[in-house]
């Protein structure tokens, strides 16, 4: 058990290191370095900048060093939470992201909970009542859920709620709560606003999980142990929940890491469309404005979130299913 965890942890750390290298390459690959952007900004403001001054700034920031030294510096600073300066926000990147990270995490977590809470009962139902009306309806919705792009679903829901409920779904707080201190009402307001992003982000994952759960339960229902349990007089509901569903849950739970990757991957675009105050709009704007310090840090965070999440789900799985430890 400990050995398994140690190996997994080492692997996770190695992956994180690789991701940091990718993020750094993306920062570096953008045309123009920080000193040139700085000079261009100054020149826009009317100041005269000489080549010597640019070289000066470059030396101050360590941009004249070879790339691996720069990478080392960047990584060492990043480990302490210092991702450099964002020139669009004129503030440290770390501080800009810190404001938005909690909401990103909240949305991702709520989406995961939503996906599993909705898909497991529906999947079990579809398996037990195979080829019933409900089963067909579930698989139809499942197909559609896989085919609709996230942003289109967000647009449609936004349009419908604007038109028929007269309520805007953009943002995460109603105007009267956005600056108010935390209170019970504010939390309720937040939860109400979370519904649409969670549905949008969770639909395709839910569709996938329903199909997986249905197949897993169907596999178990034909087993002999189900027959023998039935013969020994267990009530159908008790039997279903105690044996086939429990076994079918293991492969479903094992995809938790992948689901998380999908949710995180879809999050930026949904954040942009619904104008949520999470990392999404920040990321898109940083890319459009070539604010690469910020963009690189955000890419690193997005990847780190999925990698750490996958690690946690692996640990959870080992706790859930002892058979995996033997591998």
């Amino acid at each position, binding site marked *: 058990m400990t050995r398994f965890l140690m190996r997994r942890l080492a692997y996770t750390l190695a*992956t994180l290191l*690789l*991701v940091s290298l*990718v993020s750094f390459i*993306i920062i570096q*690959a*953008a*045309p123009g370095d920080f000193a040139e952007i700085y000079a261009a900004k100054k020149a826009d403001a009317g100041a005269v900048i000489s080549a010597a001054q640019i070289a000066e700034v470059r030396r101050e920031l360590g941009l004249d060093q070879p790339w691996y030294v720069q990478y080392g510096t960047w990584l060492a600073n990043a480990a302490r939470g210092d991702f450099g300066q964002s020139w669009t926000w004129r503030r440290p990147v770390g501080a800009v992201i810190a404001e938005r990270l909690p909401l990103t995490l909240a949305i991702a977590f709520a989406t995961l909970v939503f996906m599993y809470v909705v898909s497991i009962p529906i999947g079990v139902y579809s398996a037990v009542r195979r080829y019933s009306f409900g089963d067909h309806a579930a698989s139809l919705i499942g*197909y*559609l859920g*896989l*085919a*609709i*792009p*996230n*942003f*289109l679903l967000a*647009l*449609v829901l*936004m*349009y419908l709620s*604007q*038109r028929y409920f007269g309520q*805007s779904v*953009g943002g995460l707080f109603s105007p009267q709560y956005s600056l108010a201190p935390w209170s019970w009402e504010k939390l309720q307001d937040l939860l109400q606003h979370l519904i649409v992003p969670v549905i949008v982000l969770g639909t395709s994952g839910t569709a996938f999980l329903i199909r997986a759960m249905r197949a897993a339960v169907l596999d178990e229902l034909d087993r002999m142990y189900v027959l023998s349990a039935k013969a020994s007089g267990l009530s159908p509901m008790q039997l279903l929940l105690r044996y086939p569903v429990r076994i079918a849950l293991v492969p479903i739970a094992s995809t938790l*890491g*992948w689901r998380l*990757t*999908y949710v*995180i*991957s*879809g999050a*930026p*675009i949904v954040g*942009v*469309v619904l104008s949520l105050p999470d990392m999404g709009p920040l*990321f*898109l704007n940083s*890319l*459009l404005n*070539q604010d690469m310090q910020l*963009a690189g840090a*955000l*890419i690193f965070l*997005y*990847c780190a979130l*999925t*990698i750490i999440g*996958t690690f946690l789900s692996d640990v959870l799985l080992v706790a859930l299913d002892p058979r995996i430890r033997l591998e």
Partner: protein
Amino acid sequence: MDASAQAPRRRWWLFRRQPKIRRHDLASQWQLMWWKFRRHTLAMIGMVLLGLFAAMVIFAEFISPYPPFERNPAYVAGAPQIPSVIDENGNFRWPPFVQGLKAERDKKTLRLNYVPDPSVKWDVGMFVKGEPYRLLGFIPTDIKLFGVTTEGGFMHLFGTDFTGLDLFSRTIHAARASLGVGFVGVVISFILGAAIGGVAGYFGGWVDNIVMRLIEFIRSIPTLPIWLALAAMLPRDWSPLATYIAITVILSLLGWTWLARTVRSKLLATRQEDFVLAARLSGCSDTRIIVRHMLPSFMSYLIVDASIAFPEILLAETSLSFLGLGLREPVESWGVLLFAAQSIRSIDQAPWLMIPGVFVIIAVLAFNFLGDGLRDAADPYTR
């Protein structure tokens, strides 16, 4: 091998009649797959839909009543016009018509509104004359599938956008870029996947180990943020064609992993098979064994993976273009058209701008159906 060698010789004269040979016993592998595929209703529906899309791509100029960049200044941000055969008195009328329209300025908001003009009806006909174009790129003609025959009339089936462009014609034309990106992307992923997976499966050992770690790594990172970052790095002053190619390459860079994994595992599995041994014993070179004997034996699984990769690339391109980081005008894809529907204000004024999205959904559904059917048919020897 051994079992069949030791089986008793069949004494045929003991049987009065030869055992009946079923057609399944003689059919080739691909024949069996087709028979199995045909029974999958959804997959057949998917195939028909894809056929329609193919027709749309080939005959775009014929199907669309207007050129994709022809503005109609008399109908800006206009709602879809649906032809009808019942007039306002409930009487049947032939040929079909669309209601004539006149522009009226709202006194309060100063916005132009189009109100029906009951005295005017525009007839709609099939195979009408339109702008001259070249069918299939070389047959000069001016016949369109359908259009308005009344002089001065117009019909925009999906409405128009904020610059007066016909959305129906643009959507039909956009199928070319959207499906083109998917197709080329799948081809590139296919080549990458087959090459990398082939190397891993063939050499095994540490090469295999490194490739598998790389695949695991790519799988564990969220794809969309990486795609967005790579697309944002493309210089803005590149020509639309260069951007188009670059976006396709970027999308396939992360899409090859599934194919590579299948190629690798199938190579490892078939390496032990008797027919490979037989080929080796008869002196085939390694290349010939892989290309001529091993690859065809699991080609069907690769086709399944390709049919799954296609919708992913299509969705990714649509998302990127929607955010303004993918393809750009004058290249038209469904994502580029949806870029106009980005803000809640524009959808509120013109909800029909979301129609290209319906085409994306149908295309993805068709590929998913097809993929399901292919997956069932890929192994025709299991019942």
